[in-house]
């Protein structure tokens, strides 16, 4: 309720478009869409869409302290006004008055001793009852409940002298209240309890919140608290009450009324209004004095009823309905969701809707869901025709790649890019790089046992750095007797780099012909021609171009290029050179462009080739290895490496190798794409010592495993784990479960692993593939029998009867066989500790949810939360 003369707002309980502003008079407004025919010229804009029209003004009641709107439909627009002297007056606004209303109009309810009326509340059920809370008087009650239908009763008017009152009111006066409560006490705020309409919650002086039951007024429950300035019941949760004092709001649970459930963080300024949102559960709005923000507390996530120790979570935020001016008061709209009208001290009004926080969740299968207000939106990736235009989400890609066993081809490593779909040039480059690296490692290992591996996986950047003994040659153009002055550099490291680039194959000879052949096969005519040219075989280049032009779907322009090429002259000032260097920039194909760049450049100044970003990194690096001297080469490689690292371009792995630099590069790649799958598979090939220990790498691997789990690709995840443990033995998990003997308490598996020739783990318990003679049905420690299977009643260790015949049939690991192996394992419920052969248990729980042991009622299957989930991948 307002105090002083700051305006307050009241929504009509029944007309969603009417409200009253009260300051020193009452003004009724109707709210409507702005600019509609209904709104008149004098309409006040409240927001971009809405405007308010003043319908009526009532200034009959001075010294207003509080106002309450009659809750029933009829008579509508009946208001009770509490005045500074404690009188309560019924009044109305702008309605055609029916007889009932006329009778009530102007009726006054006068307390015995005058003092300020602080608060008014209509009973929600017995709407004749109006409770008024007054300041204290030494000899009077502070809560008076008036019956507005009670007759004007002259006998109730004090018979004593009326010397003091001095007023000659025309309106009928009622002086006898229905109930009087709270002697010697001020009532600052009160409300009726919506659940039991005869109960009244009072906030009073002497620091009490009290609940009175009108059926027995001597009974009251009360609690001592500071927070007594205002009370308000949550309309959605009728046992929840907010009360405030100065800057503090306390939230109470009426069922546990001894102390506040919690208090909200204290505001520096005193609060002036606290109100629950009527359209949204658990949303409390508070306003402090001289403030331009409304603070909202969302108790949505508060568990009810509260535990004693748990501090409930509340989300606090603030809104600023009108930017510049301070807010005098606000009122929630009774029906429109999260809407309120605020009013400033100079009566500027503002229509405002509080936006819900949007909560958003990604699913692991590329759908996105968000909730706003009462709406839930789902957004799924459109896998339809538009997919050509829009690239698929990385999650979809990874899922598809996981299904196609991407990353698992460890023999022909380059094939992994085909498993990934074969349409990503970066992945293609990456897997080829890894392929060449692997090839070379194997080669070296075959030849000598020296540890050259670290050098290989460290990439061209490090290889080139260690380069020494470079020789320089000047070769003729092959197929031409013209001398070139193009110096070419050779060294062991440079040819190694060329191998990694894929230009030359392993072996001592540096012949690019196989590479050219493979390029021709793939129809990469321009690239092949460029490689041939860089190997100073201009005739071969022209041949290739010619072949390209005459091939199926060939580009006839290639003939033109071949013609241009054949006109090559090393004359410095020739017309050919001049024209080529200017016209080459118009060539669309990058490889054609760099061919002419090479031919027209000065020796050692090949920027036109080296910095042509459309050309594959491996080709540029190979070129650099051939034509840059020892000073230029490392500089160029370093520059390119940094460029790749920044861009997260996987082609750069060629330069960095699987080193710390490579992890940096991969980090920016993952940052860019989110592709932890490629990162995991790639880095697993790195040296276990340094790279795999990097926390970033571990993070990618763990995230990829989680992702697989989230997709329910459990078999894929297991496969990945196996793959991982092969490459990184340190990742093998330690045994986490041990089976101990009931009698001696020793671990069965442990004790048997200590015995030689017995293999590891459970192998001798009939688990190993072959029908073994060393079946053990007793504890190796104490020779006591192992427990029996609850279904077949055989001791554990006995193979499942139905399986052995099948197990003998085939040697390969079919699905049946794998399962058959597992059938012999034993398993048990962690709750009732009954169990038996895994195969028996599986088939039992396919049809039952209860434990197979007859006296046991344990619902084992329901306790297993993941037991009912089906993997979404196949073995």
């Amino acid at each position, binding site marked *: 309720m307002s105090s002083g003369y700051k305006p307050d707002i009241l929504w009509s309980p029944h007309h969603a478009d009417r409200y009253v502003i009260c300051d020193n008079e009452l003004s009724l407004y109707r709210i409507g869409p702005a600019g509609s025919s209904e709104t008149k010229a004098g309409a006040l804009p409240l927001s971009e869409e809405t405007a308010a029209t003043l319908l009526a003004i009532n200034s009959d009641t001075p010294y207003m302290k509080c106002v309450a709107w009659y809750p029933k439909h009829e008579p509508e627009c009946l208001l009770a006004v509490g005045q500074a002297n404690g009188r309560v007056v019924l009044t109305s606004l702008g309605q055609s008055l029916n007889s009932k209303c006329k009778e009530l109009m102007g009726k006054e309810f006068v307390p015995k001793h005058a003092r300020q009326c602080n608060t008014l509340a209509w009973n929600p059920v017995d709407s004749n009852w109006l409770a008024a809370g007054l300041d204290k008087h*030494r000899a009077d009650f502070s809560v008076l409940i008036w019956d507005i239908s009670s007759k004007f009763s002259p006998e109730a008017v*004090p018979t004593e002298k009326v010397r*003091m009152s001095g007023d000659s009111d025309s309106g009928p006066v009622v002086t006898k209240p229905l109930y009087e409560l709270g*002697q*010697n006490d001020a009532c600052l705020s009160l409300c009726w309890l919506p659940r039991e309409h005869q109960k009244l919650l009072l906030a009073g002086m002497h*620091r009490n919140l009290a609940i009175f039951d009108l059926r027995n007024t001597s009974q*009251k429950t009360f609690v*001592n608290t*500071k927070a007594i300035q205002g009370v308000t019941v949550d309309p959605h949760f009728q046992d929840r009450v907010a009360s405030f004092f100065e800057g503090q709001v306390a939230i109470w649970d009426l069922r546990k009324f001894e102390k506040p459930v919690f208090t909200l963080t204290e505001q520096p300024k005193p609060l002036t209004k606290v109100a629950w949102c009527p359209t949204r559960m658990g949303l409390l709005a508070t306003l402090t004095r001289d403030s331009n923000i409304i603070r909202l507390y969302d108790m949505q996530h508060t568990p009810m009823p509260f535990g004693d120790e748990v501090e409930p979570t509340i989300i606090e935020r603030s809104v600023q309905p009108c930017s510049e001016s301070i807010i005098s008061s606000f009122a929630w709209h009774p029906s429109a969701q999260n809407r309120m009208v605020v009013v400033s001290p100079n009566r500027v009004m503002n229509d405002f809707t509080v936006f819900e926080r949007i909560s958003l969740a990604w699913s692991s299968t590329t759908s996105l869901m968000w909730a706003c207000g009462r709406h839930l939106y789902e957004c799924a990736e459109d896998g339809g025709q538009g997919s050509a235009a829009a690239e698929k989400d990385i999650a979809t890609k990874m899922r598809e790649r996981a299904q196609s066993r991407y990353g698992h081809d460890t023999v022909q490593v380059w094939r992994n890019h085909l498993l990934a779909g074969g349409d990503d040039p970066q992945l293609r480059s990456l897997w080829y790089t890894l392929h060449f690296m692997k090839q070379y490692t194997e080669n070296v290992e075959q030849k000598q046992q020296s540890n050259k591996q670290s050098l290989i996986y460290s990439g061209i950047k490090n290889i080139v750095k260690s380069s020494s003994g470079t020789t320089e040659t000047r070769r003729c153009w092959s197929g031409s007797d013209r001398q070139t002055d193009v110096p070419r550099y050779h060294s062991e490291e440079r040819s190694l780099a060329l191998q990694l680039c894929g230009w030359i194959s392993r072996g001592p000879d540096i012949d690019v012909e196989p590479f050219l052949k493979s390029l021709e096969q793939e129809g990469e005519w321009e690239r092949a021609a460029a490689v041939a040219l860089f190997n100073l075989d201009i005739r071969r280049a022209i041949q290739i171009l010619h072949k390209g032009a005459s091939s199926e779907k060939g580009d006839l322009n290639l003939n033109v290029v071949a013609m241009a090429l054949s006109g090559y002259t090393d004359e410095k000032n020739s017309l050919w050179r001049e024209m080529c260097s200017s016209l080459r920039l118009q060539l669309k194909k990058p490889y054609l462009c760099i061919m002419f760049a090479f031919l027209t450049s000065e020796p050692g100044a090949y920027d036109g080739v080296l910095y042509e970003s459309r050309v594959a990194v491996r080709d540029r690096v190979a070129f650099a290895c051939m034509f840059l001297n020892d000073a230029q080469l490392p500089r160029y490689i370093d520059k390119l490496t940094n460029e790749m690292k920044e861009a997260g371009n996987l082609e750069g792995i060629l330069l960095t190798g699987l080193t710390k630099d490579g992890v940096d590069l991969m980090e920016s790649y993952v940052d860019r794409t989110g592709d932890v799958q490629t990162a995991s598979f790639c880095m697993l090939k790195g040296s276990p010592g340094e790279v795999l220990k990097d926390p970033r790498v571990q993070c990618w691997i763990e995230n990829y495993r989680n992702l697989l789990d989230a997709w329910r690709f459990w078999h894929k995840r297991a496969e990945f784990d196996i793959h991982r443990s092969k490459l990184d033995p340190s990742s093998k998990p330690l045994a986490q479960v041990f089976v101990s003997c009931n009698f001696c308490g020793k671990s069965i598996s442990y004790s048997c692993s200590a015995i030689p020739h017995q293999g590891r783990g459970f192998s001798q318990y009939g688990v190993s593939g072959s029908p073994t003679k060393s079946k053990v049905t007793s504890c190796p420690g104490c020779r006591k029998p192992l427990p029996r299977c609850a279904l077949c009643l055989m001791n554990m260790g006995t193979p499942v009867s139905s399986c052995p015949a099948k197990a003998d049939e085939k040697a390969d690991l079919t699905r049946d066989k794998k399962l058959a192996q597992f059938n012999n394992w034993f398993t048990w419920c962690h709750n009732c500790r009954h169990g038996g052969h895994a195969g028996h248990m599986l088939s039992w729980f396919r049809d039952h949810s209860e434990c197979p042991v007859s006296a046991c009622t344990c619902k084992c299957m329901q306790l297993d939360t993941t037991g009912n989930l089906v993997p979404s991948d196949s073995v």
Partner: protein
Amino acid sequence: MDLHILDHRLRVTCISKSGLEHYTHPLIKLIFLRNRTRCKFFSLTETPENYTVVLDEEGFKELQPSEHLQVEGSTWLPLNVVSNGNASSSSQAVGVTKIAKSVIAPLAEQHVSVFMLSTYQTDFILVREKDLSVVVETLVEEFNIFREEGGESVPVHSQDACNGLQRNGREVPHATVHPVLIPENQFCVMSLDPDTLPAIATTLIDVLFYSNSPKEGASVDQDMECIKFFSFSLIDGYVSLVMDTEAQRQFPADLLFTSSSGELWRMVRIGGQPLGFDECGIVAQISQPLADSDISAYYISTFSFDHALVPEEDIVSVTEVLRAQRKDMSS
């Protein structure tokens, strides 16, 4: 019934009539400029003898010591009785009468000196801080005692029940019977919305500080027909006024709150000589017979004398009761 020991530490002071002009500034500040002081408890009572000012320590800082200011040495704590609900809702008697038997009489028996201050809103019983333990001991059986500290009410328990009552050892000879004076003027007890205090400021200043000027010649003390009595208090934001009908006519009628019946009160002044602060049982002497005859009363102690206000229609019976009492005592 609850007894609250309020969170105010009060001083009782007295400003002589002639020295008032030295104190008008702090008094006006304390009355009208609520936001400028941290004083939460202020009461000013004008009697023909002097001005009694009761105020908390924050307010006391405003008063400069001088020859015109007399200060009672001890710190006083206000007590407040809260009938939580229904206990005496049927009884018509209010104010001091209501608590006469439960508080006043037991304290008098324990020789605890009390200083009464009734307002429109409630009755305060001031006791010396040093007497507090005795007060708690005495009243703990009858009341739930709470001490208010920083806005919270903390239950108070008797420190040591088996300690025995540490009574005020002073054996005071049986209470002297004080003469009473019943002036002719009628009084009203009123309140005011603190927000409208500025509206009556000039009137209030006029009544408080300039009331003596026109009748300078007439010796008020001798004029027993009417005595000058005006009390203003501003306690925890509540205003209370006690004035005679003559002063009341100067105020705008619609701003002051009073009972709808417009009840009027008559005054009984207790004491022929200034009473001092050490004598106990003075309030009990008056309140007990009133309680016996179920007559409600206000009671306002000042520096020199005590004042009881009783309903106008009961003044005859009060006179008789007191006369009878005096006969009993003297016989």
